[in-house]
């Protein structure tokens, strides 16, 4: 029984981790806090639903297409709006992304088909897989496996590809990176595009697990605790923070009284900020 709860928590944690990853990626490269990751996640899930239900695409084609579409949207939003936040105070991108998020949510809410019926992506295989006494839901397994694959691909991208190294160099010091021939403005665009694509990826993974509806972006609020627990500036930390939040929530839901579950993530965030403000990863290290 406990193992089953843990697998559910792990799957939820993967989604938190992916959104936290998108948030930290954007923050490191652009110094902007994005408050529209939840809306991008929702839009990604809806794109996949539209491709599958309205256009009849198979799942394996619709999922990457939805992620690709959102990558394009991220680039477009950066060109049109977010570029102006460069060199401004923290407040500017916060309000910009919040406003863009409202617009996305409003636009989706305005489409009658989006709200009148519940949508859910159907996986080809819905039977739980028995692993000894533990019943594993295939949608949870898919989330976990896809997250592992995405993290592996990102690690390769950041270590071995030219664009990944340039993005990292730009996050460290944009001025020096520019001298060495990296275009900071292209990296700014790339970071927003990848941030949008990662959020959409999380949304597509979430679509078989929960219903796809305009308010589903609230899961992204759990990504802030995940990012803070990971120390705000570390990509692996964000994923681990997400897993930590997901597992703590699952355990709190099982062993603690009703209602504590929803508070867990935020209480953890406040606790970590007060005690280990640079993230749990730094807690064990001597200063």
């Amino acid at each position: 029984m406990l193992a089953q709860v843990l697998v559910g928590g792990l799957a939820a944690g993967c989604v938190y981790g992916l959104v936290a990853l998108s948030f930290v990626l954007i923050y490191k490269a652009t110094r902007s806090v994005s408050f529209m990751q939840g809306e991008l996640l929702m839009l990604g899930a809806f794109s996949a639903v539209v491709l599958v239900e309205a256009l009849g695409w198979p799942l394996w084609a619709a999922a990457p297409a939805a992620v690709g579409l959102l990558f394009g949207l991220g680039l477009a939003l950066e060109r049109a709006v977010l570029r102006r936040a460069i060199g401004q105070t923290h407040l500017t991108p916060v309000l910009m992304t919040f406003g863009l998020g409202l617009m996305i949510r409003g636009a989706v809410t305005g489409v009658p088909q989006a709200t009148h019926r519940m949508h859910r992506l159907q996986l080809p295989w819905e039977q739980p897989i028995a692993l000894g006494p533990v019943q594993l839901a295939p949608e949870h397994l898919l989330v976990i496996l896809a997250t592992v694959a995405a993290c592996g691909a990102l690690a390769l991208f950041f270590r071995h590809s030219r664009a990944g190294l340039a993005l990292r160099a730009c996050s460290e010091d944009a001025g020096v990176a520019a001298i060495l021939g990296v275009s900071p403005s292209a990296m700014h665009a790339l970071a927003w595009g990848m941030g949008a694509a990662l959020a959409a990826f999380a949304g597509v993974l979430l679509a078989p697990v929960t219903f796809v509806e305009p308010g589903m972006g609230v899961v992204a609020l759990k990504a802030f605790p995940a990012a803070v627990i990971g120390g705000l500036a570390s990509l692996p930390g964000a994923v681990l923070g997400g897993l930590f939040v997901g597992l703590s929530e699952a355990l709190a839901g099982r062993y603690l009284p009703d209602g504590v579950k929803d508070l867990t993530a935020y209480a953890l965030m406040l606790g970590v900020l007060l005690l280990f403000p640079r993230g749990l990863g730094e807690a064990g290290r001597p200063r």
Partner: protein
Amino acid sequence: MIQLAALAALFALAALFGGVANALAQAAFVATFALAGLGLVLIVGQSGQLSLGHGATMALGAYAQGVLVAAGIHGALALPVAALAGTLAGIVASIPGRRLGGLFFAMSTLALALVVEEGLLRLVPLTGGAAGLVVPPLAVVDWRLHSPAAQAAVSLGLLGGAVWMARRLRDSRLGRAWRAGRDDESAAAAVGIDLGHVRMLAFACGGALGGLAGGLYAHWLGFLSPEQFGLPLSFELLMLVFIGGVRSLSGALWGAVVIVSLPQAIAAIRQAVPWLEFGAAGLELTIFGLIVVALVMWRPAGLWQAAR
């Protein structure tokens, strides 16, 4: 003077179209939001730090007021407690940023906002949870403030006092320390300003005004429920100070006028253009978002200040 005259003209216009009682009730809301906005101007505009949880100080003030009045304590005596609740929330939220500054203020105030909203929802015996909490009208000695005129008078009076105090703060040693830390951290630290301490004081002062505004808001609404005080309220307050211009104290008042009248303006637009009926809730969100983005892009120093 010009600003006062413009406000009076706006009020006359509102009274002409919506009736005097309605205009007075709106004035009470404007003054209450301006009070909370003034607190945020101290934090964001003067000390230069970002608070994403100013709505939480309002929430704590409102619920402190609601619970105390429900317990039989006089409303006028409960208001200082509401302000105190906001102060404490501000201080708690500023502790992590004390050592690290910058984004950590934003994250810890965000955590505060989320914890407070969930906490109010879960503490059912005290707050009524999602079912809400009924707050009786504010009473000063034996005089119950039922009429919009009295409500507007009390909130405008408190706002006037708060503006006077905020001006004194702005021109004091503390105000200069806030601006010094905002404009150049290392230079401020070099002349002996304890940045963590003065920023904590900014969050305390801002929180006090937020709590006080919350206490009044509880009475004007007459009914409290946690979702009124969620993250959207904190962002609405940020937008409020942004509209008025974060650097100016009077900006809070103008921002409050816009924020209070915006939903009504959107409703009026919807009535005037019926073919836009494609999704009532969606349209409101879209217009609101569009206004935020347009403001930030083209009026970064406030609606009335030309971009520098």
